[in-house]
Each structure stands twice: as C-alpha cells, then as structure tokens.
C-alpha cells in the first residue's frame, strides 16, 4: 500500500489477526497510515472494525501479526505503554470514570500525558496547570458548565463529548475515533465533527475514524478502507471506494438493512 518513496507510516499493521476459538474476527489485515492523514474505516456491524482498533491500541492481544508506530514494533506492549508511544483512543461504548467529575475525568488524561501519575507526596491540585488545561478542554467541548457533574448524571450526548475530550486531552500523535457521533442528537453532531476537522487541519496528527454515516466519511476522509468479515476488502480514495461494487454490495446494502 505504502510505496517506497513514502515516509515511514505513522501507524502500520502487518498481517494483524485475532482468533476467538474458531472465529477469525480480524484476518491478516495489513495497512499503513501516513502521518497527517484521516482514514475512515467502514464496514457492516461485526466486520471487525472495533476489534481491529482494540488490537492496535492494545485492549486485545493479537493472535498473529504486528503493529508498528513510527516503524517501531509495539505488538508486545500493554495498552498504557502504547498510549505513551502516541496512540490515543476514544471508545464506541462510553467508557469513562462514572463517579468522578467531568473535570477530574479530563484532568486524569492530562495528568497521564504530563507523566505526573507517580507523584505521591504533593496534593493533586498543586499542578494548577493541569486543572486549567482540563477546564479549557471542557470549554472546547461545551461542557464547562457541567464540569462538576459525574458522567453517570450526564446525558448520552454529553458523555460522548466527554469521551472525545479525554482523547483530545491526551493529544496523541494518532487519534482513533470509534463512532464518535453514535447516539448523538442531530444538533450535537456538528460540534464533534468540527473538533475532528480542527485536529485534521493541524496537519501533524494521524486520524483513524470508524464511522457509519457516509456523509461524515465523505466530508472528512482522505481515504477509506473497508473491512468485511475481518478482512480488508477495499482501500482507496473515498469516491472510488464508495463507488466500488464490493462496497455497494457488502457495506451499503447492509447499512440500508440496518437503518
């Protein structure tokens, strides 16, 4: 996929595979993601998109194959170490600290990036800068007025925004969004898309986006890859991939059935 003249990919998977018993959820997926690009990953439910994400960010261990960040093999590293190598992940099912405040959720992400987690003898708010940054981040996702609420008391849409805020607070080199707008009300979707657009506009961040909404994919993606039954079945420019027979049949047909 990556020709010899291209720079080292920001992220690459080589023959990445996971088997659950007899079921092959992700089947030998080899793919390289160039720095500064936004790649949409599409495919019907159960195609292995989230599993592929879990293999990259380390929530699942691969049966075979490898994951490389900046050309370095990270396949054996735990999820936390991968985060410090620059992989950041937002989750499809909201995955927050339910009883801590929204501010504390974000502050914990910033604290991790700042490498301050092992400080034991200072009071947590000695690092005023981390709190201020967390407050600014909540401002960005329009949650500033809800910073003292815990996720379990937030609406679904607000939880999704907080999920995005946690990822942006980590400010990884590689952003992985797993259906960031799923379940959001129509008027909340543009906020999140605008944030993704801004990250992309910086030009130095690599973005992977699992998304079902084709209009979103069309407007944001530089490239689309299609997963079907765990295998990579199409890869290319958005227009040509969407037009390809395999996508029309395997994905769009099924998407229509879902809706």
């Amino acid at each position, binding site marked *: 996929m990556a020709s010899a003249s291209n720079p080292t990919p920001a992220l690459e998977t080589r023959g990445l595979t996971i088997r659950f018993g007899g079921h092959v959820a992700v089947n030998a997926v080899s793919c390289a993601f160039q720095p500064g690009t936004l790649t949409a990953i599409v495919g019907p439910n159960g195609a292995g998109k989230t599993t592929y994400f879990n293999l990259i*960010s380390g*929530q699942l261990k691969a049966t075979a194959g490898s994951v490389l960040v900046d050309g370095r093999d990270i396949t054996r590293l*735990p*999820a*936390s*170490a991968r*985060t*410090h190598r620059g992989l950041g*992940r937002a*989750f499809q099912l909201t*995955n*927050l*600290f*339910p*009883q*801590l*405040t929204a*501010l*504390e959720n974000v*502050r*914990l*992400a910033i*604290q*991790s*990036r700042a490498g*301050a*987690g*092992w*400080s*034991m*003898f*200072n*009071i*947590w*708010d000695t*690092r*005023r800068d981390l*709190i201020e940054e967390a*407050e600014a981040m909540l401002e960005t996702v329009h949650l500033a007025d809800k*910073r*003292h609420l*815990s996720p379990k008391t937030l609406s679904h849409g607000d939880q999704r925004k907080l999920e995005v805020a*946690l990822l942006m607070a*980590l400010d990884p080199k590689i952003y992985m969004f797993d259906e960031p707008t799923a379940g959001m009300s129509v008027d909340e979707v543009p906020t999140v898309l605008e944030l993704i657009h801004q990250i992309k506009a910086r030009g130095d961040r690599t973005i992977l986006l699992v998304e079902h909404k084709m209009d979103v994919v069309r407007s944001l993606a530089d490239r689309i890859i299609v997963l079907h039954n765990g295998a990579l079945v199409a890869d290319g420019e958005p227009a040509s991939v969407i037009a390809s027979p395999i996508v029309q049949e395997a994905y769009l047909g099924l998407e229509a059935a879902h809706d």
Partner: protein
Amino acid sequence: MTDATLSSLPVSSLPRQGGLLRTILSADPPRSKALSLLLLVVLLALVATPFALPGSQPLGTAAKICIFILLAASYDLLLGYTGIVSFAHTMFFGIGGYGIAIALNKLGATWSSVFIGLVAALALSAALAFIIGLVSLRVRAIFFSMITLAVASAVLVLASQMSGITGGEDGMSFQLPPELRPAFKLGTFLDTAINGRLLAYYLVFFVALGMFLLLLRIVNSPFGRVLQAIRENEFRAEALGYRVVSYRIAASVISALAATVAGALLALWLRYNGPDTTLSFAIMIDVLLMVVIGGMGTMYGAVIGAALFVLAQSYLQVLMGSISESLAAVPLLASLTHPDRWLLWLGILFVASVYAFPGGIVGRLRKTS
C-alpha cells in the same frame, strides 16, 4: 456506597485557600460539621487520655485506638481507594510486631534494636507485598485476594511453628529501651507522673498521627487520583496510559508498609507479640469491619470505625455484664445479654449500620451536611 465515593472527591475548582490546615489535611477536609466535631473529639480524647483518665486500662484502649486507626486507614488505601481486597493485611501487621519483638528479644533492649527490627520488618513486608502483587495482580484482582489468603495462612502457621524464632503460639515478651519503661521518670505534670509508659503512649500517638496524615496525603496526591480512577474503570485507566498493575502493586506495598509500622507500634506498646495479637484472621475481619462501618474510601472512616470498634471491644462487654446482672430474673434476656454474647451484638450492630448507612458513618454524615 456510590454517593459516598462520589463525595470522596473534593470539588476541584473552589479557589485554593492556602493555610496550614489545608496542607496538613491535604485539601481533603472532613466536609461535614458533625464529622469534624467527631474527629476533634477523638483527637482531643486521644491527646488527653493520660492526664484525664487515670489507670492503665483507658491508656491501653487509647493506644489500641491509635494503632487500629493506622491499620484501618492503611487498609482503606487498598480497599476503598484502589478497590482491591487483601486478606494479608494482618500478616504485614504481624511482621511489624515480630520485627520489633525478635530484635528487642535477641539483640537487647536498645533503640538500635528497635531501628533494626523495624527496618528489617519493613523490608520483608515490602518484598512480600511486591512479590504477591507481581504474581497475582497481573491476572485479576480476585486472584490477588486468593493469593493473599493463602500466603497469610502459610505465614500464620509458620509463625506458630517456628517457636525458636517467634516464640510459637506463646508469642514473645521483651524489654523496652530504658526511656520507655515505667521506671523511667521525668517528674509530674498536672498530677500525672511523666514516666516511660507515658512516653511510649505519645510515641504511639504521634507516629500513628503522622502516618495517618501521610496516608491522607498519598490518597489525595496525583498518584492517589490514579488509584481512584483504577477503582472506577481500570480498563480506561490503562487506556489513558496508567499501567494499572504497577499502580496496584505500589498501593499494595504502601499499604503493607503502613500496616507494618502499626504492628511495630502495637508490639512496643504491649512489650509482647504473638499470633493472637497481630497475625490472626479475627483481627483481619475486625479491620475490614472498621473500614466498612466507618466508610470506605474516605480515610476519616478509619478513624471513626477504629475508635468505635475498639471502644465496643473494650467496654461493650462491661456494659453487657451490668445489663445482664440487672436482668438476672429474666431467663432468656439475661443469657442474651451475657458478656460472652458481645460479638453477637456487635454483629447485629454491624448489619444494622451497613443497612442504614451503606456509605459508612462518614458517608452518612457527609450526606446530611
């Protein structure tokens, strides 16, 4: 329980008020008038016991309260803040006790023996906690509980059998350094003799107080916040870049070290250590009850829980004895209130308090304020 854990995090964007008290309490004040008052009463009572209440029994009870506050608080770090259940907490308590007892017994009654015994015990506890964490916390938190149970049982048997070193079932008595002996006299103050016994009490008091405040600082540090994040959602904590297993092992080692200090204090106070005073599983259950009754994940719960529990242990039997005598004519009630039934009543009190205050006493007090 949920409301209690929620309120265990102080609201964060209040303007920072400087001040000594804030620094001492690590920006985590009681946040309830009733609780503040209760804590102040406990503190003043513990400070004043030697002068206010003559006799050795009140002083012994006060020393035991100090030590169990430290023991329960160190357990709360693990149970309430990190969300892992250990059954080996009294093992570390026992290691501290045996460290002091063996060193003072074999090396002579000097301060350097105290120092050597304590340092050796701390090293052993840290090594054991680290190894147990390393082999079990990688797998699952429940596996950690099972391993701690197994190791603690093995150590209990070992301590009882290796009588050459530990004194076996009988335990081991020893002499204290001269300054802590009753015969050491400095004069009198407020009609109370300032002797070695009093010095020993204040040694226990100030070490326990200092260690408690240190634990309070640790749970309110950036590190402590990570522990709470792990308790809430370990999967997400890992994804944010916190190596969950390392943080859990660190919490387990810190908790073990604090329990070791508590055990050393108890041995110094009793001038004796044996399986029944520090190692037994009965104490393990007591500590669990203290933390749950007081309120998990609050630190102050350990103070309230330990004070109530030790007072009940010391005085509930006396109280029941007098009730039983006055009810001697009523057959069933007299036997129900017999002092030997005190654990039954403590059990009923425990069930009632857990049912009425699921967030413990501290959770309840913070809710009303």
